[in-house]
């Protein structure tokens, strides 16, 4: 028989075997606070994203030239008037980059938002209602999952991809499934929590329950997942544009990369047409990854103490005895 009469220990119990640090709070406010104040990685990522978003939004105001106007010779190198030179159409590269940010970021965020809406709805319904609905929805999700994403994306873009809206829809439809699964799991666990059961016993209706209890618990994870999906969406847009399948009237970073190939930038030794668009895409994707990952880490801390390390435990001199002897 064990000492059941004694209450469990406080923090710091059995340290080498369990998680050592207390969780920084799983409320939305807690996560945000951790993000902005505590986590350098997330702060840096957020900063980078903010800069790009600001640039994109301010494009009409800050872009030095028009994105459609030829202002000089083909592939003119960078100069004081054109910081990043000109492209194969004689258009200012810096302008193109800024305007390209608009499209790339727009597609990224819009597709991700749409994927979040679809996946989140499916996940919440599936996890909350359970039973038949759950099975059916999960079957559908599975079928979406098993069809390889890239061939499908290529074909869909080839058939329907000529407008920006279609591209957004295509990306969202292909990538909503992981969100659905994640949210479903979270909803299932929230549903089993005592206060939800209590609320239901008190007669609260389903919609009210979902809105007041399930949603607040699920939202932080949903947001974290959405941020990570933005990275995937931008990557996908870049890919589609490279294959020549995007909206032909829009400039995006993906399109700029494509242009550098078809316009012969390599053989014209025009690094300013090749390097910048890719750098921008990489930076934004990295930033999204930083922020999204930090958020997910804050929500699902898996701080396992490793047993091996190059570092070893340290020796200290014993503390002097305080207090009366």
């Amino acid at each position: 028989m064990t000492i059941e009469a004694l209450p469990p220990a406080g923090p710091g119990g059995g340290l080498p075997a369990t998680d050592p640090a207390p969780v920084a709070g799983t409320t939305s406010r807690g996560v945000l606070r951790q993000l902005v104040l505590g986590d350098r990685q997330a702060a840096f990522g957020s900063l980078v994203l903010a800069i790009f978003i600001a640039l994109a939004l301010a494009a009409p105001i800050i872009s030095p030239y028009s994105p459609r106007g030829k202002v000089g010779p083909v592939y003119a190198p960078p100069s004081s008037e054109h910081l990043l030179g000109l492209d194969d159409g004689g258009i200012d590269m810096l302008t193109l980059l800024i305007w390209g940010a608009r499209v790339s970021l727009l597609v990224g965020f819009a597709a991700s938002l749409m994927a979040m809406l679809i996946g989140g709805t499916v996940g919440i319904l599936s996890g909350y209602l359970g039973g038949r609905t759950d099975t059916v929805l999960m079957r559908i999700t599975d079928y979406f999952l098993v069809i390889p994403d890239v061939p499908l994306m290529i074909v869909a873009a080839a058939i329907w991809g000529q407008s920006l809206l279609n591209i957004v829809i295509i990306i969202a439809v292909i990538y909503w499934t992981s969100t659905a699964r994640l949210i479903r799991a979270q909803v299932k666990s929230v549903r089993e929590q005592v206060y939800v059961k209590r609320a239901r016993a008190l007669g609260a209706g389903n919609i009210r329950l979902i809105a007041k209890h399930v949603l607040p618990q699920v939202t932080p994870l949903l947001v974290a997942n959405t941020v990570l999906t933005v990275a995937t969406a931008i990557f996908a847009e870049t890919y589609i544009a490279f294959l020549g399948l995007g909206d032909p009237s829009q400039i995006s970073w993906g399109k700029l990369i494509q242009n550098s190939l078809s316009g012969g930038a390599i053989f014209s030794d025009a690094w300013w047409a090749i390097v910048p668009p890719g750098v921008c895409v990489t930076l934004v994707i990295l930033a999204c990854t930083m922020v999204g990952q930090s958020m997910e880490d804050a929500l699902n801390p898996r701080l396992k103490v490793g047993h091996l390390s190059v570092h070893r435990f340290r020796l200290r001199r014993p503390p002097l005895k305080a207090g009366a002897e």
Partner: protein
Amino acid sequence: MRGADYVVRRTGAALLTVFVAITLNFVLFRAVPGSAITALRCFHCTKQFKAALEQELGLNQSMWQQYTIYLGSLAEGDLGTSFTDHRSVWQNLKEPIMNTLPMLVIATVISVVIGVAAGVLSAWRRGTRTDRLNTWTALSFYAMPTQWIGLMVVFYIALRFGFPVAGIRDPTLGILEEPSTWTVIADRLRHLALPALTLGIGLYGEYALIVRSSMLETLGEDYVLTARAKGLKNFNIVWRHGLRNAMLPLVTLIALSFGYILAGAIVIEEVFSYPGIGLAVINAIDQRDYPVLQGAFLLLTFAVIFFNFVADLLYFKLDPRVTA
């Protein structure tokens, strides 16, 4: 055999997925706005020609009839006829597939080797600057658009060091004299090297991150503490207990990443003008050669489904704890 019923079930699931893919393929291409024929771009395609083609392809029949015919010809291995050169789709795709395969294999090997090395190093030196540097490098390469890495490689490396940037073989070989097998192989490798290397670098990031976290997780397991308690040196623990267990997820991940490596191969082939299946797909898109595109879609999808299936089986076989 252990878990024979598991294998049967996974096979069934895979076959079902194949069927869904086939149907999807059919539906998608019938959904082309206008019809596949009207969208066709070719020189000699007059209106009468297109009408005759439509008749010939049975596109004026009911959907259900078309579907049945479609399934029937697939069962015979007939993927259709190309719109542009009128050879069978399979003839059009066979050689490109053969060209792409070695590139995929080499790229996978490269990315796995670098990925494992980077992942283990990071896990080993967890929390140090090496770890952070390593991790962010891996993440950065993973974030870069594959085609862009290709362009950078061509621009900065290929031209500078005299690597070939187009095609699969040197066109001047065999003109003056019959080249030896070794020369042919060496030439092929030279043309393969950069595309495969680029693809490998673009992909290693994923493996590095997974290996790192898998390794860290393994190093936090109780049996690692036991090994340490038994007096094993750190290196031995990693080598004997850590790697084997940490690599388990890696094997299935490699199989599951096939889709991703294929996607990368497509754009890399465009950048390097490498005549593989990727380039075939891109050309088919440009020319709106739907039969070839359809055939390629099917083959690629089958390949990915196959590798996912292999991943399922591998995971089951490698971990003695997993029961059906």
